[in-house]
């Protein structure tokens, strides 16, 4: 990192040790900036590349004033480390100018609309892209040497990126011995050490690798001639890279033949089914049990009813949901709890009352002294109704038509279970069980006896508690618990 500077009147010349000598640039830039040297008064050169300044005797940089400090945003350091690798010879001076401006405009880098910041970002992007393309387009060839196998690649990057990019190849190909040759530098990994050496030439790289024929076969076969989009390909894989890509030699022929292949695919008339098709059909699909298509009216048990409901299409709610979420619990339960509809988690799990409201419900009935294992829980509507919102689903209320359609199932469940008491949790359940809308907040805690003699106890849905602010929650939980204790009393 030898830094030599020559002072010609007010001009300073900085000679960096190499094209990517970031440490050298940093130290010189720091010193010059602290001395207030204007960007226009500095020439930046690289050892061995400074033909213009051959006559300039290197001189010391000015001393750094005592306890002077230079502060820059962390992001500038990151950007500068990348931009140093750019092939533009003006980059050193340009970076210094940004450093210079940062001393006066500390927020400069946030001003993405500033022309200098734009250029800085563009340069960084160009380096990043080159690094990315190198990771993509390096093609190793396998050779055997005294120590076993070794993988060697020839690559021609646009910027000075070999050293910056080499650790990636170490992380990825740790268990291999490999060498990447480029015109500016060579990276070599022997399985334990990474060495960066001088540039090489293409003739130093091996000529063939048997795997390339397989790779070309793959490239040819994965291409769909009916979708030819040459521009989209060349935008991402510019022609300048082709000469070092074994598969690229196929491209002209694939393009030329695409139209014809695609036409042939379209024109080729459907033929007779393949000979083995009949055998496969007979063996695998002939006796496949069909999903139940009964309406469940004749079901003799809840299990049969559940099966029938799995294929229910009585209202449109099945379309968007995952599955029918049927009731759960012993068939001889004395009390049946009826909620509104399955929620997001119930829909995924296929079980009722497993989401947040279900867990709250479990906790509170336990407090009320009711053994959940002796109860049957179900919903008035068996499919989840929702509105998608990004990665979530927002619960939507079932309408009267959907409640009515789904009564078919709850009626049959109740007929088969014959409980002493049904608890309607919330307005939807009450509407389903009583056949009409009832003001649930007014009537909670009451028991209504239906015409058929079934007793229906009314209370709120536990999800109501979840939506309340914390202060109100405790009080409401108490009221809900009181309701459930009343249920416990009614259960006898």
């Amino acid at each position, binding site marked *: 990192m030898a830094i030599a500077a020559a002072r010609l009147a007010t001009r300073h010349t900085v000679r960096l040790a190499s094209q990517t000598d970031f440490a050298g640039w940093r130290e010189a830039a720091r010193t010059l900036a602290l001395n207030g040297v204007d960007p226009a008064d500095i020439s930046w050169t690289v050892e061995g590349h400074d033909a213009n300044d051959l006559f300039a005797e290197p001189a010391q940089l000015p001393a750094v004033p005592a306890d002077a400090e230079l502060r820059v945003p962390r992001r500038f350091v990151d950007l500068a480390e990348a931009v140093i690798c750019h092939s533009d010879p003006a980059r050193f001076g340009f970076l210094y100018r940004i450093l210079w401006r940062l001393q006066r405009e500390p927020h400069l880098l*946030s*001003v*993405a*609309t*500033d022309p200098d910041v*734009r250029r800085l970002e563009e340069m960084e992007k160009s380096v990043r892209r080159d690094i990315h393309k190198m990771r*993509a*387009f390096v*093609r*190793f060839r*396998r050779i055997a040497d005294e120590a076993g196998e070794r993988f060697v690649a020839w690559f021609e990057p646009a910027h000075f990126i070999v050293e910056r990019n080499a650790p*990636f190849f170490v*992380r*990825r190909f*740790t*268990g291999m011995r490999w060498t990447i040759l480029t015109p500016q530098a060579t990276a070599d990994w022997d399985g334990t050490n990474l060495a960066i050496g001088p540039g090489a030439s293409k003739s130093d790289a091996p000529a063939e690798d048997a795997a390339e*024929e*397989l*790779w070309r*076969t*793959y*490239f040819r*076969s*994965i*291409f*769909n001639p*009916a*979708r*030819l989009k*040459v*521009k989209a*390909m060349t935008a*991402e*894989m510019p022609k300048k890279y082709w000469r070092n890509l074994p*598969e690229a030699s196929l491209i002209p022929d694939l*393009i030329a033949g695409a139209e014809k292949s*695609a036409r042939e695919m*379209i024109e*080729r008339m*459907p*033929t007779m*089914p*393949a000979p083995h098709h009949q055998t*496969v059909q007979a*063996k*695998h*699909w002939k006796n496949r049990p069909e*999903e139940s298509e009964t309406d469940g009216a004749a079901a003799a048990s809840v299990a049969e009813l559940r099966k029938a409901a799995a294929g229910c299409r009585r209202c449109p709610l099945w*379309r*968007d949901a*995952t*599955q029918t979420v049927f009731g759960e619990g012993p068939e001889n339960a004395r009390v049946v709890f009826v909620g509104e509809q399955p929620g997001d988690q119930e*829909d*995924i*799990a296929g079980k009722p009352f497993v989401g947040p409201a279900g867990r709250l419900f479990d906790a509170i009935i336990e407090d009320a002294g009711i053994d959940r294992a002796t109860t049957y829980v179900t919903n008035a509507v068996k499919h989840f109704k*929702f509105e*998608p919102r*990004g990665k*979530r*689903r927002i619960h939507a209320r079932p309408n009267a038509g959907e409640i009515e359609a789904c009564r078919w199932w709850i009626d049959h469940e109740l007929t088969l279970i014959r409980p002493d008491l049904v608890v309607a949790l919330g307005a939807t359940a009450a509407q389903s069980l009583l056949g009409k809308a009832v003001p649930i907040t007014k009537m909670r805690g009451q028991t209504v006896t239906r015409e058929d003699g079934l007793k229906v106890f009314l209370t709120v849905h536990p999800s109501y508690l979840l939506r309340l602010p914390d202060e109100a929650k405790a009080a409401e939980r108490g009221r809900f618990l009181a309701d459930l204790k009343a249920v416990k009393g009614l259960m006898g």
Partner: protein
Amino acid sequence: MPAPPIREKLAILADAAKYDASCASSGADRRNSLKSGGIGSTEATGICHAYAPDGRCISLLKVLLTNFCIYDCAYCINRSSSNVRRARFSIDEVVKLTLDFYRRNYIEGLFLSSGVIRSPDETMAEIVEVARRLRLENSFGGYIHLKTIPEASQELIEQAGLYADRLSINVELPTDEGVMRLAPEKRPQTIRRSMAGLREKLEAAAEPTLRTKKRSRFAPGGQSTQMIVGADTTPDATILKTSARLYGSYRLRRVYYSAFSPIPDSSAALPSMKPPLMREHRLYQADWMMRFYGFDQREILAGRPDGMLDLAIDPKLAWALDHRTIFPVDVNRAPRELLLRVPGLGTKAVKRVLASRVHRRLRLEDVGRVCQSIAAVRPFIVAEGWSPGGALDSERLRETVAPKAKQLELF
């Protein structure tokens, strides 16, 4: 009959896989081989190692284990009634091919799928075994995407998630009716339940366990799906509705749209035409609007009574032209949500606008430096010293901002 040489098998089984659109290798956790001393790494985003002349990225070795299949899905080249040539890789052949390709830096990893032979579980078990041998016997740290067979057992799915970075289940077509008509042996219900099952496992794995405080491993790259577009008459509105439902319900990383492509020896049940590539492109743009610009699926097609996206212009521009009253948007004042609705401003441009305007009032040329084309943005914004004036009300606005017809030709 002697088994065909590996090269022929590869030709058949890659050809059989090429109609599947997804090839992404993103979303994995960061890994490298420094500790294991093996090979393979994954970083934040995957790398496309080559591009085929169809413009698609080649990032993974995308093959089928076998193209024998007991299903008879009309749109699929591997359906049991097809006269296509059949082949079958052995487990070790796929393992070796993956490693050979990976060592030469041709690929990021493997995307393995298969026709279903004998039973779903047997097939799934072989798929899982390939991944297991790669990971455990060969210390392979590259990307692995496994196609999950919906009917396979939960234990096999569990194992698949242990080795794979991403799992996917194809919904095949945008509607259940479509699946039942064109893929008569498939059950839309089963497909949904499997996706729900994956979501459950993914979420469970994301929760640190109480005891070890560590997350368990299950497909860190999440799940994705694909549906074929243009094999039946489903309009775009229904397709987007299905996507919105899938994103919301199963937390998918991606929904891939695959323009139905003619296949050799095609079924008579299907249209014989070139794949609708422009339509596919517009659907991806609309999908992007839902995922990144905050549009609701219904808004996107509100102005289109036929439920089809305008093929001539980008759906975001189409929406803006239909909602001119919310424009012009003031780049110096408008909230992020509104800026995201400006045609020509992407998420990155909006981020830059927001960061820059804290420090200075933005002029038109400032905005021009952070977006692709200021000409497209100009009519919809107000900036310091700039107002579109009557341009927004102009009858000719569409012609001014829409790309010239020539650029529309994809062929």
